[in-house]
């Protein structure tokens, strides 16, 4: 008698509890399904509407608005015109994001190096950490306003030009780079640093020859994710890069980018522009996904485990 009760120490689960368990499992699974619905829908529309817009012409011509405007309300609709592709927008995005990364990545890794190698838990280092956190939460449009006031209104090197937009984007990327780099640099084992120091290496050699190479792939991953994040941003560019449609490689000129191109196309009356917006959106998402993919591949090669 006693042995049989000890072999089943627990009372059987009542049907009510079993039902609740089943129900809640179903609810959680449904929640996951619901979370994936928007992703499926967005990808579906991106491909179904965006793919039809893509063509060689789409990638090799610049947006052309001059032929199609003005559109007079009330008058018969103007004849269909060639609104052009997104060549200048693609090039502009690459240039602005490239310059932004060039500004943000070295600075961000520098700050992270200071925090892990020198600052550690000092009050100043903690203050920097705190304000980097604050910076992460600043809405991107506020960065745009700041750069507009400081750089555009003051007419430093022209009006609203491309490099100013790159500065705004860099400010957005900076805290992301700092935080991810700090995590990765913190993962470098102290024993490696100590070994190098014990061999007589000066601190700067430890940093450049041991810490940075060990953390390299992690730093690349964090930086690429930050760049991917910056690539899709529209708000910091709205008032800072000037509105241009022409192709230019000069960062001192107004420039076009994919996000701002989509933004302005959405405000246009005819469906032609919406089609171009979908095509541009597909291109932009593809670029960001490629960056993410490269970042993940870099992460896989990480030496830190």
């Amino acid at each position, binding site marked *: 008698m006693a042995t049989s009760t000890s072999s089943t120490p627990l009372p059987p689960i009542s049907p009510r509890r079993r039902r609740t368990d089943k129900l809640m499992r179903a609810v959680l699974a449904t929640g996951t399904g619901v*979370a994936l619905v928007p992703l499926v829908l967005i990808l579906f529309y991106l491909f179904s509407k965006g793919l039809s817009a893509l063509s060689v012409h789409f990638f090799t011509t610049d947006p052309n608005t001059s032929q199609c405007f003005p559109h007079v309300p009330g008058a018969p609709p103007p004849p269909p015109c060639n609104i052009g592709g997104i060549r200048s927008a693609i090039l502009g995005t690459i240039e602005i994001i490239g310059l932004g990364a060039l500004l943000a990545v070295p600075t961000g890794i520098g700050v992270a*190096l*200071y925090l892990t190698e020198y*600052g550690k838990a000092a009050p100043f280092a903690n*203050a920097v950490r705190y304000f980097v956190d604050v910076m992460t*939460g600043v809405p991107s449009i506020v960065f745009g306003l700041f750069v507009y006031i400081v750089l555009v209104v003051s007419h430093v090197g022209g009006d609203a030009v491309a490099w100013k937009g790159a500065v705004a984007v860099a400010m957005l990327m900076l805290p992301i780079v700092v935080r991810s780099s700090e995590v990765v640099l913190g993962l470098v084992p102290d024993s490696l640093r100590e070994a190098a120091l014990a061999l007589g290496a000066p601190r700067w050699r430890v940093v450049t020859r041991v810490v940075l190479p060990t953390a390299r792939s992690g730093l690349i991953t964090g930086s690429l994710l930050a760049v991917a994040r910056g690539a899709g941003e529209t708000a910091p560019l709205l*008032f800072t890069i000037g509105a241009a449609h022409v192709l230019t490689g000069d960062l001192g000129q107004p420039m076009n980018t994919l996000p701002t191109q*989509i933004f302005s196309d959405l405000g246009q009356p005819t469906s032609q522009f919406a089609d171009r917006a979908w095509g541009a959106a597909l291109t932009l998402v593809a670029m960001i996904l490629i960056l993410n993919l490269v970042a993940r591949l870099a992460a896989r090669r990480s030496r830190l485990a």
Partner: protein
Amino acid sequence: VEASAPTVSGGRSVLERSPLSRLPDTVLKFGLAVIAAGVLILLGAFFVVLVAQSSSAFSHIGVFNYLFHNNWDISQLGQGAACDTGHHCTFGAWPMLLGTLLTAGIALVIGVPVAVAAALFITELCPRRARAPLSMLVDLLAAVPSVVYGLWGFIVLAPKLRGTQQWLADTFSFLPFWAGHVAGPSYFLAGLVLAIMILPIVSAISREVIATVPVEHKEAALALGATRWEMMRMAVIPYARPGITGGAMLGLGRAIGETIAVAYVIGGSTTVGHSIFQQGQSLAGVIALQFGEAQSTPLYKSSLLAAGLTLFVLTLVVNLIARSYVVRAGRIGDKGPGRFSRFRRSGGGAAAPGITAIEPETL
């Protein structure tokens, strides 16, 4: 020469470096400190510039009147300089403030339960093999730029959900601020799109936090005869609650600051709508859409910069509260980032642990 032991020659040990060879060290340390200080200076300048630029609006209109008066009227813009004296144009930003808070609130109500459910399912219920792919799919939502959400919300969602919105408005018409005519773009639609946009960050942080629940707690609950759900309710959720709350607050901060997507799907009306199914405007949206035309009207421009400052302060407060919660949950300790690795041990996958740990920040 007896160089076997450190001897002193000219006041310094032979093991000590010469001042010249120590120079790179000093330069590196000093240079990095300057860069780090640059971040503080940048944010200080940020705040000072925003305050200075919006002060004329605040002093002209009054902080209270600016924030809580429902009268944003720029219809007289371009009819001479009258707009700038504040006599013909009025700048009360309450409609925008309300729009921001309302849409962010709707986003939390819709988004957080879904995100937490997904996090619980992925960490506790689904087969181990499906964990990484499912997490990646949810995280993928964060890779979609906000302008694409705007495009999708405006062109696809707004017309398709009009019927659904009308049905909701009619069915639950007894609720306040609810019934009435339904516009395509609306507070509700903006909230829905924001819910989708905050889903990945809330879900990622919830997953992280749930992964830190000690296995012993879960096993203890199961050993006492709890079902899976009871284990989650009694062992997982109470332990992870501060972290989940922090994640939700970070999502709230994201929702408040979101600009382009909201600007498209909220409708753009600068008056307070009669229900959540009507058009409105948000603080970020009004800046994006009206800043261009405000250039030549100082008071107008200053009012929009004041909207930027309000937004900044709002997100600052929300993020600081979020931070305190997340710190309490032990994710971001001030003892340095090394603590991350400890938490990741059980949930580690193929990727480097540091990378999985940083993901929520980079979303």
